[in-house]
């Protein structure tokens, strides 16, 4: 078997082993410090619970990108829970609807396991607005409204928002200090960026994207249209570390996945090196043969 001709099946098997072993043996590698995630942390950490104000989390992701987007959403939710800053969860993606219900409960369970004191109650600490029908049109309607409750009307369970304590005093987009938008879909982030604003007011935007969209997100980060963002799961892993630094030892939500991906990326680098070495070696022997002839 030549170096340039390794069977794909062998590559797949090695990759599978590389992904599984860190999870199996709980291997953890410290994530790299990422400035964009630092900025996202600073933005969320500066928030204080204020009556009538709510953080809006647009979790526009489904099962396909949950490996990257779920840890991003989870660390933000944990941070907000710890700071007692109320938040609203919503999504423009129908497949996200069931996950919006379960994720805050999973985070609460983890917080309890970590020994964090206190309790968090639906309606008082967070509200699930569910799937917003109409995509960009829904965002436009919310932004234009003098009372968002007249547009959204109820939460995901059908409770009128005027009866949900955490949302009853929220009137307009001006009452949203930070919008967290996490997605693996094309075009969704732009819709929030474009329409979620009122007159001259635009909430600070924290973004979470899959690794493949990082180059796109940098455009808005460089222009300061987003104040911080998660560069794939690596960003969430660094956020994990920042939460550890602030709140002490806790179960990390993203570092494990990031370690697995990092090992796979090292494998990719090795394969690229291997492919190129064999490529140049073959070209060298080919030229040598031509010279001899």
């Amino acid at each position: 078997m030549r170096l340039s001709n390794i069977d794909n099946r062998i590559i797949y098997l090695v990759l599978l082993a590389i992904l599984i072993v860190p999870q199996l043996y709980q291997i953890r590698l410290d994530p790299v410090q990422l400035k964009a995630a630092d900025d996202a942390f600073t933005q969320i950490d500066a928030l204080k619970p204020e009556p009538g104000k709510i953080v809006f989390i647009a979790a526009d992701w489904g099962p396909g990108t949950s490996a990257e987007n779920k840890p991003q959403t989870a660390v933000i939710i944990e941070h907000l829970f710890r700071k007692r800053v109320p938040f609203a969860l919503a999504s423009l993606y129908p497949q996200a609807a069931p996950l919006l219900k379960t994720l805050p409960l999973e985070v609460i369970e983890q917080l309890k396991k970590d020994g964090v004191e206190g309790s968090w109650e639906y309606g008082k600490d967070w509200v699930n607005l569910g799937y917003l029908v109409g995509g960009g049109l829904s965002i436009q309607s919310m932004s234009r409204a003098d009372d968002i409750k007249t547009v959204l009307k109820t939460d995901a369970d059908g409770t009128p928002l005027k009866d949900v304590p955490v949302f009853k005093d929220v009137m307009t987009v001006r009452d949203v200090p930070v919008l967290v938008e996490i997605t693996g879909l094309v075009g969704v982030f732009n819709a929030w960026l474009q329409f979620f604003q009122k007159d001259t007011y635009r909430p600070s935007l924290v973004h979470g994207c899959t690794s493949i969209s990082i180059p796109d997100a940098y455009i808005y980060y460089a222009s300061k249209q987003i104040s911080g963002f998660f560069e794939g799961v690596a960003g969430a892993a660094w956020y994990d570390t920042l939460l550890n630094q602030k709140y002490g030892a806790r179960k990390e939500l993203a570092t494990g996945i990031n370690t697995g991906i990092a090992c796979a990326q090292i494998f990719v680098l090795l394969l690229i090196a291997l492919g190129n070495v064999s490529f140049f070696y073959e070209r060298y022997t080919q030229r040598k043969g031509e010279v001899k002839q």
Partner: protein
Amino acid sequence: MKQLTVKIVTFLAGLYFLLEFLLPKKIGAFEFGFYHEQVLDGARTVGAMAIGLGVINILFVHGSRLIKRSKGGLESFAVIFGFLLMGMLQGGEFIRSESAVSTWQGFMAAKDYLEKNGEQIIQRRDAAVVERVSRFYREQRVNLAVNSATPSAASLVSASALNQAVARELELLRELETTLDATRLKAAVDGAAVAGKLAQEYYPQAAKEGLIPQLSNFLFYGFFVPLGASMFALLGFYIVSAAYNSFRARSMEAAVMLIAAVIVILGQIPHGKLYIYEHLPLVRLWLMENLNTPANRAIYFGSAIAGLAMAVRLWLSLDKNQMGGER
């Protein structure tokens, strides 16, 4: 005529949104976007119709393949079976949750009704109002007895608490009917508020129990979530294989790209002691901010201008395909 109608509607719709964006909110007393919310509702309705078209399309394409027993019939069967199964389960869940919402909202409405008609009850000595509210609670008591005949452990507590609250409220209403005074009215309103709060907790919870929601959850979390994740994971395997087979420095441009890619990957992964250069993450950041961003912006501007040209063509119905013309 048909084409002309489509052209006129398209033009007017485009013109409306253009003017809505460009014009100030108010020109004197005139507000151009006064009915904008209704217009957006209309746009949403048109979008919802597309779902119907999609359903017809799926059934037509896969149904005909199944009936004709042509190649891929088994896959088509899987599509139709999955579609119908999930459609029925989600439909069932929707009906259950809607019924739960209307039931607990009924409790709230009963409380509001009692409160609103308080004056009538006391001043006009109108016991009929109280009787109407009592009838509602009696009906709910019968429903609760049926619904909580086989309750799960989770809903048992709130079901019995709600039962007690309804019984207590019926007692309070009976007292109010006998003596129509402000004290008893207040007690009945307070009791109705307690029952309403418990109903709001119980009914949505009860709607999640039973075979339909369980089966629906099983299919979503047991099949859909892992299958969706698997589809995305396949991409990862494909990329690794492509990196090995195709990512070669065959030319100067490819070599530059390869070096940039290696720096970006190395600057992002946690390789701890393997660090080649401790400032690698900063080099990566510089690459992303100073080389990637301008290049990406240029691409975005280009595609935005192309998108604008395309939008104008659609708006003015210059595109033949849109009008059903030949390609």
